[in-house]
């Protein structure tokens, strides 16, 4: 068992090193640099679109503490949407209506993937603020808009940022699937490696994606702490993990 195993893992490491030291795997249209950039571009666009689409209605509903059940149910249902099916379904439509292959089918699927956690966390963040606090703000003479902007939004911020973070990490890992419909991203070398049985290349490409999503987690975590220095991270984490599970 020993020697054969060794031989195989040696070969994989050799493949990985060959791939890493070949300048062709770094530069050019199919190089890791360009693919990483494309990967980040699409992930960023999808998360940004989800933030723009989810946060205003979440804040509105949260502020009025209305429609919660309906909203949460809808979001839970959307979680059942299989990303692969959405990509496959939008793909022919995108071709037919001249949006091309790759970017748009993947964008639609990732947008739908990113929505639920952002929406739920923003909604919960605002709607679960102690009523007394909100009433106190009103009693101080704040307009509704001010209550939302100066009291509810800051109080909801830790949970809101956590929602964006959870979504972004998922999206970065899932963007890989875009390669199946011809979007040039970090999934491209993975598919190529599966087809050519190049395990070294596969591992390198997978590690780049994993590193990218861990980096996303770290950066957004840092942004969250910067934005809300008053919040205890531990408490938010605990709350968010339960929330994430709804």
């Amino acid at each position, binding site marked *: 068992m020993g020697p054969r195993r060794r031989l195989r893992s040696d070969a994989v490491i050799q493949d990985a090193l060959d791939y890493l030291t070949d300048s062709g795997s770094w530069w050019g249209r199919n190089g890791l640099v360009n693919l990483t950039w494309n990967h980040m571009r699409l992930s960023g666009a999808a998360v940004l679109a989800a933030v723009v689409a989810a946060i205003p209605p979440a804040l509105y509903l949260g502020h009025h503490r209305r429609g*919660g059940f309906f909203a*949460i149910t809808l979001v839970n249902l959307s979680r059942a949407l*299989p990303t692969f099916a959405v990509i*496959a379904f939008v793909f022919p439509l995108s071709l037919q209506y001249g949006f091309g292959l790759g970017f748009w089918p993947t964008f639609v699927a990732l947008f739908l993937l990113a929505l639920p956690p952002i929406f739920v966390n923003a909604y919960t963040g605002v709607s679960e603020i102690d009523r007394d606090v909100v009433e106190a703000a009103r009693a101080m003479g704040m307009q509704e808009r001010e209550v939302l902007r100066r009291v509810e939004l800051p109080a909801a911020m830790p949970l809101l940022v956590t929602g964006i973070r959870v979504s972004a990490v998922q999206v970065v890992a899932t963007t890989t699937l875009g390669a199946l419909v011809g979007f040039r991203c970090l999934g491209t070398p993975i598919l190529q490696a599966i087809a050519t049985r190049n395990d070294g290349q596969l591992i390198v490409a997978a590690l780049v994606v994993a590193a990218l999503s*861990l980096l996303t987690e770290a950066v957004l975590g840092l942004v969250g702490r910067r934005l809300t220095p008053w919040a205890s991270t531990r408490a938010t984490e*605990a709350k968010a993990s*339960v929330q994430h599970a709804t």
Partner: protein
Amino acid sequence: MLANGPDSFIWWEWVGGHTDEIWERTIEHLQLTGSSVAIGFVIAMAMALVSLRWRRAYGPLAALSGALYSIPSLALFGFLVPITGLGFRTAQIALVSYTLLILLRNIVAGIDAVPASVVEAADGMGYEPWRRFLAVDLRLAVPAIVGGLRVATVTVIGLVTVAALVGSGGYGVFIEDGLSRARGFSTPIVVGGALSIAMAIAFDIAFVLLQRAVTPWARAAGSGATP
């Protein structure tokens, strides 16, 4: 209604001619989902027990399952193929690794959230530590744990469609089939996608009902389903 043919959104004749295969794929999808979530739950529970006993272990365990979670499914499936071959086992290993983070977080958060006063009361009543854990801590954590199972199951059902790429069957076979036709034949994609969604919703509802059945006190307080 309108003429129904291969170009339609869904071509019913194709569906009618594939009922046997649909049934077969349903069984495969269920087997892969059920076994992966079950194995994942056992491992996550063990990790949670270790974390609760030795607090310092939680950070590394959560980080480990977080790292597994961040590996793209496509890469993890592809990576396992040379080791475990094409098929069920490969898909299962990858899927189990995706359930760990969600389940671990929820089990630990749920047990942590049990009020200290309740635990003390149970201790005062003379419960032995293990009995107290099973009868009090774990029971009160049921809503959070079921919440984790819901998310894990729904996530896995979606990912099983991707697992078709490594030959493990399930509804993903239909999606792959539709995608591989040159002009895009939407019927198998719609069928595979819709059945996968239906399965996810069915499981989600089943878990909510299960939770209501085992936590009658929560219903009394009006918070049966986690908000």
